[in-house]
């Protein structure tokens, strides 16, 4: 497709598509990052809880710490989609 044949509608549609792709990348990559972070924390937390059940609350909390990054990703995605 050349620039001459590109109508306004096509431009708008591809802009919306690129936005959606951007939002997907934002959530997807941050999700991967959070997953990698939670991987070792989760393993350690399960081990710690096996030793001492009382710290389940704290352990669960440690596990969700890296989730911040995926929430930033989600916020970026939301802003892209709804602004």
């Amino acid at each position, binding site marked *: 497709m050349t620039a001459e044949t590109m109508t306004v509608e096509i431009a708008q549609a591809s802009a919306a598509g690129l936005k959606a792709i951007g939002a997907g990348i934002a959530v997807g990559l941050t999700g991967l990052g959070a997953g990698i972070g939670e991987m070792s924390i989760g393993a350690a937390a399960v081990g710690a809880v096996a030793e001492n059940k009382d710290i389940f609350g*704290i352990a669960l*909390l440690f596990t*969700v710490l890296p*989730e*911040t990054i995926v*929430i*930033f990703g989600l*916020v970026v995605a*939301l*802003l892209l989609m709804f602004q």
Partner: protein
Amino acid sequence: MFHPESMSRLLIVASKQQLEPVITELYRMNIFHIDDYIEKGDDEWEGFRIGMPLAGADVTSAALVKIRSIASAFGISKDDINESERSSILELKRRIEQDLPAIAEEVEKLLSNRNRLESATKEYEQKIDSLRPFTDAPAPLELLQGFDTISFIAGYAKEPVNLSVPHEKWESSSKTSNLTILAVKNSDVSTAEKELLEFQFQKIQIPQESGSASQIIQEYGQRIEELKKEIAEISAQMETIKNRHEFFLMSSEEFLTGDVEQAEAPLRFATSEHAFSVTGWVPSSKVSKVFENMDKVCAGKVYVSELEVEDYNEMPPVEYHNPDFAHPTELFMDLYSRPRYTELDPSLLMAIVFPIMFGLILGDVGYGTVLLVMSLGLRSLVRGSEAGMQLIAILRNCSISSIFFGIFFAEIFGFSLPWEPFWLSRHINVGGSGAAEHGVAAAEHVSHIPQLLVLSIWIGILHITLARLWGVRNAAVMEKGHHGNLKMFANIGWIMVMWGILIAIWANFTIPLMPDLSGTPELFAGLNISTIAGIVILVLGLVFIARENALDLLEIPTIISNVLSYTRLIAVGLSSVAIAMVTNFIAIDMIINPQLANLSILGVILIIAGLVVFLFGHILNTALGLLGGGLHPLRLHYVEFFTKFYRGGGKKYSPFGMIRKLTEQN
């Protein structure tokens, strides 16, 4: 409110004759937190030693151990007993002397019998296990052992066995086992075993039995059955004993525990030859009560005095002092760390903010109602566990807040309620124009997501500013001198940096729901007055921070990440809205509605499948909402809020005494 219970330090001194009445009275009052006397070190008083337990402590402990062992054999605990009556102490004492030995002996006998039978059962089971491979052996078991010149080797081989020495071989014909039995001369056994290693031969013992293996197995199986019957009989006997004596056992356990604790109290006292002394903490409001009661029980022969507390870093024990509705949140405080005595206790604020945050995330009338019903239903399950009750109360408060925000957002299970959301809407357009075709008005999907995100940022800004202000207060009260001042100003500096950044942003960008300062007149180099004011405040703040510790400047980016972290309140909430709406769209618009329009037998099945999808999706979403709605606000408190001002590490106030449930006060 915001402060722990005020504590006073008391000193009690009396002659040793008063030791018992003083201990009994302190135990009864259940308000005196004993400071253990330490014999060595700075706290030592010359001539004072740690006391000896009261007479009879060993006998009482022995009885207590007996009762506890019976209780653990029965698996009963105090919480299982619902009787409202209480045992009288005199009656208990009599029964402990008269009945307990007999009960203990009976239980012991039954237990040892049961153990004997159980071990016999195990033995037979093991024998059966070792016999099982030989069920299709070519000869009775007695012919496979006990010869003078020939030995038998039995075992499993991975492949057919071939030996160089003379031997006779039998291989199992069944497909499931590959048992091999070899007969070799005694003199060849070691050679044969060496060669067998090459075939990865796993040797097993030939059981010392006579007759065919399957017959013996059957016989043993019968014996196990008989043993099990006997065990069941004993268990039934124990059950009747348990039912008969449960209340007696538990109430005497409580009574004796109290006795032992009292008898061992002198171990925490300082005693000389003729006198004893003890220090401890009492809530200030109850000091006069201690004075009065001590005077009464010792007929004036006791010296009680309130000690001056020079330094509160001596750490009085900490007891929360909150209005009733904030009590459940104390669980979250203890989970992190109990506040120190001089520190601000944030549990009241947390009791208010936590449910609001939960509601913002899971603002849905439907889910809120489900959780409310759940919290009411679970109440009877956790009875007896204090932490459980606290958790349930928190869940109840959160679900009420969730319903409230659900009305605000006009949401029920992801559907919209028949009114417009107040102020800000978070309805998303799931299913695109398809949803509109099914009668959902397009106007409903006007969402204010950027505004909601800004709102959550505002919550973050205010929350963190408050945390820093409390940091100023804690620094002023808890740290004296130059360092305290520096710390105070550092906290002010952090506030200034945050607001400086904010003002600079407002001066250059127009953001919904935030002040717009971009219109202020330009001063120089394209910078308007507000930008410059923001930068000045920011730099001043940096100076304050650097004066306390220049390394802290590295942490400046956390200001932005911490504030942005509060956007999770909306982001996590939106994800739960999205899951609910998608569930509804798949179940209703994609599966159920098309079938309803054109009913057929297959359609009915599909409609049922649609209902299953609907239920499953919403159950999943309730669980996720509970987890997300609970953990994220908790994290915001622990990580973003507490780190600014809170240290914790207070000692728990645990008064000497007990709350009697089953016995009368003596």
